[in-house]
């Protein structure tokens, strides 16, 4: 056994470097005439992970998914699945199942026939097919729906059938193109959990395209944030939320305050009349650089201000939005023209400090929570 393993390891080493990712995308670009949809995309997808392509419409995420599937070929660049070059292979020669936003269920076939569609072609005997269909129906939580037609199903049920059909042939990879965006909010949330559970229990490598950041944050193992045909950042949901790589990512994921200013000294930025002290994150910027300072609404501190030696500012409360479990408070930054700061405060805090519209309070902007980016016009109002 050990001998075998060693020999295997050596031969595979000779052929290709170790630890090749499940799917490797190398310098993939795609042009439609004069329009560049993808520019030099290089990405590794690890076996068994759920990876989300996230971005606004037109950012190239669906184009990239279709290139992986072979439904639209990339203009340049290569794609490898398990080390095999599939760059020019037609979709039928690749190993994936796909689910579309529109479900694309065949309307003239029953649920069972839809699910069995890919199996019938493989000369598997009828009994085995029927068994597999039952198995899949149970898997997606729809036992007993065999003889229904798609038109008789709800959107969520249709999506489950589409998923079962894609999984029927046990593909090595699952591609999901905005799978939940045609559903209403409640069903979407429920399916999000089910989909993630199913993916985890099957351990199937999954690529999901979405424009819904909440969906990506809650489901993905890793998120690929895309913008204008390029990858803006790749990371776990937490990394992307906590440490966005650019003002664009910071703006796209979650809510964010953007304060524009100029570096006036090392680790110090002037925003209007305020001087904001920064930590090591700002060391790449020199005096005179235009920067944008970012802080999440939930990171604005009010309690124990004594803890913070710097960045204590007086604010006035312009508006309070009650959002159930917390309040979103719009603060006017004194000393900065037209600037506002959004802060999320717990109901508890609102009560303790008696915060009402028109009132005043002191807040701190904790240094460790501040992100600094070069001001490239991205983020905030984009003035």
């Amino acid at each position, binding site marked *: 056994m050990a001998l075998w393993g060693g020999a295997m390891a050596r031969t595979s080493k000779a052929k290709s470097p170790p630890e090749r990712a499940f799917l490797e995308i190398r*310098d993939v670009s795609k042009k439609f005439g004069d329009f560049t949809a993808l520019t030099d995309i*290089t990405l590794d997808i690890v076996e068994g992970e759920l990876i989300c392509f996230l971005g606004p419409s037109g950012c190239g995420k669906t184009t990239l998914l279709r290139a992986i599937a072979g439904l639209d070929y990339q203009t340049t660049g290569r794609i*490898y699945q398990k080390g095999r*070059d599939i760059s020019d292979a037609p979709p*039928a020669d690749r190993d994936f199942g*796909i689910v579309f936003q529109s479900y694309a269920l065949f309307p003239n*076939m029953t649920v069972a026939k839809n699910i069995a*569609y890919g199996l019938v072609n493989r000369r598997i005997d009828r009994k085995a097919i029927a068994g597999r269909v039952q198995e899949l129906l149970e898997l997606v939580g729809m036992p007993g729906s065999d003889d229904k037609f798609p038109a*008789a199903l709800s959107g969520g049920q249709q999506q489950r059938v589409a998923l079962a059909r894609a999984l029927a042939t046990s593909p090595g990879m699952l591609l999901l193109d905005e799978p939940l965006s045609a559903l209403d909010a409640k069903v979407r949330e429920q399916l999000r959990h089910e989909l993630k559970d199913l993916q985890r229990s099957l351990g199937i490598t999954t690529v999901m395209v979405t424009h819904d950041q909440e969906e990506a944050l809650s489901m993905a193992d890793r998120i690929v944030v895309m913008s204008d045909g390029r990858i803006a950042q790749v990371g776990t949901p937490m990394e992307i939320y906590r440490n966005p790589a650019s003002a664009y990512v910071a703006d796209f994921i979650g809510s964010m305050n953007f304060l524009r200013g100029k570096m006036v000294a090392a680790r110090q930025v002037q925003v209007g009349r305020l001087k904001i002290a920064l930590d090591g994150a700002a060391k790449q910027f020199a005096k005179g650089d235009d920067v944008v300072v970012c802080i999440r609404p939930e990171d604005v501190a009010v309690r124990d201000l004594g803890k913070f030696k710097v960045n204590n500012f007086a604010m006035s409360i312009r508006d309070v939005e009650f959002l159930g479990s917390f309040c979103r408070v719009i603060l006017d930054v004194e000393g900065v023209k037209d600037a506002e700061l959004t802060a999320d405060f717990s109901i508890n805090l609102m009560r303790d400090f008696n915060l009402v519209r028109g009132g005043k309070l002191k807040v701190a902007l904790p240094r460790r929570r501040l992100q600094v980016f070069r001001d490239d016009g991205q983020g905030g109002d984009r003035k």
Partner: protein
Amino acid sequence: MSAPDISGATGLEPPGSKALRRLRALKAESWIMLAGILAIFAALLAFLALPLYALLKKSVEDDKGEFVGLINFQEYFSSAGLVNSISNSLTIAFLTMIISCTLAFTFAYGLTRTCMPFKRMFRAIATIPILAPSLLPAISLVYLFGNQGVIKGLLFGESIYGPIGIMIAMVFYIFPHVMMIMVTALSTTDARLYEAADALGTRPMRVFFTITIPGAIYGIVSAAVVAFTLTITDFGVPKVIGGQYNVLATDIYKQVVGQQNFSMGAVVGLVLLIPAAFSFMIDRHVQKKQVALLSARAVPFHPKPHKLRDAGLLAFCILMSVFLIGILGMAAFASLATFWPYDLSLSLVHYDFDKVDPNGWSSFYNSLKMAGFTAVIGVTIIFLGAYMVEKGQNFPKLRGLFHMLAIVPMAVPGLVLGLAYVFFFSRPENPLSVFYSTMAILVVCTIVHFYTVSHLTMLTALKQIDKEFESVSSSLKVPFYRTMFRVHVPICLPAISEVMMYLFVNAMTTVSAVVFLYSPDTKLAAITVLNLDDVGDTAEAAAMSMVIVATSITVRVAHGLLMRGLNARHSAWRE
């Protein structure tokens, strides 16, 4: 994300090799797709483009096939009689266009914008003329207004043989086409516009001219163009009732069949092609604009009762129905009257066609055969062609080119197409000349003649099918043709049945394209009508027309029953 370049593949490579690699990577099914597109493309090339080229070539040749430049055109334009036909044709087409559009608009307005009763019945009556060859109204008019006509006096001494007869018969013949476009134009409106006008206290007349007409204007233009083209290219009506009044369509026939002057026939054909192609281009342009007119959120219009308006339009629709039924009824009665006008007792003597024409009844069987083949073969090719245009994955340029070619037949008058076939297929050096004077060439010519409308109908049906089915299918490793048969064909059955009926009825009634192409063995029923009328057996001609009408009605009823059956069977999955 930086990743080491493992394979050395950087995307920098000669562009040709990539295309080549992909071509090699094509699976068998892609080759099937390519072969299919090429085959249908080649067929349209051979049966449409090349014959038209042969026609063009013929127009600059003399009788011996020598190139003579524009001499034929010179000769044509220096002959006063021939040039006179151009102005005759334009006059007739223009006047018919005005009359038929006015009548059809009013009729359609009654159907769409009033609360008058019997709308469905009126609509059904208005489509009657489609079922008959264009010869039928002309024959009928002869019985009504001819030398022994029943209501000849209504013409106040004018002769029905000439422009008046042509125009009345043409209005009958093109009425359903124009009316249906008008109905569509008047149906696509937004009720909110009328509510807004009402709220602003606008007078009905002003509403009509500022909202109704502008909203339907593209449809009206389209209808006018169709009326003009159908009139100027029709051959049957002026042949039967034109008398000494020459038009372009009859000139072609006279030059080719009468005087065997093929080059001059080609010249007249090209002259006829110009207004047809021109109106075709206007129509395409207008239709593109029409689409954008109605937003998805428009509120459908529901007319409110209005006594005077509803009564007025009801009266008009009744009158129009009397006209349409009267024409058909006259032909029916004439075919049954034992000896017009002396013995009006009913009998079937005129239906014994073999007594007056040895190919009488056999021509009817030929027509059935031809229409059957046209419907079955035509729908197969048209479906496959439309499928490849709409759902094909590879070869976008080839598919685009094919689509363009598929639109061309609409611009080519039947007479011109038939003549082009004569020039192309009669040449013994052409390997395709084995088709000449066979049933096959009639079938092919008829399919090509009616290709465009069928192609567009099929395309519309296919466009409504989820475009991801092909992607799903290939991800499941199911070849496209399997999915086509199992999914697209069943979903498209209504359109397939519709196109088959359209092809069948048109093949039964058409004269223009096939009049140059039939042989004694393959003579068709509509041609027999023409011949019978030519030699004076008018009652028999009327009888044969009625046989054609009866056949068309049978097919239409069959189509209706089939649709009902399909709907019942598929109600489970059709919304």
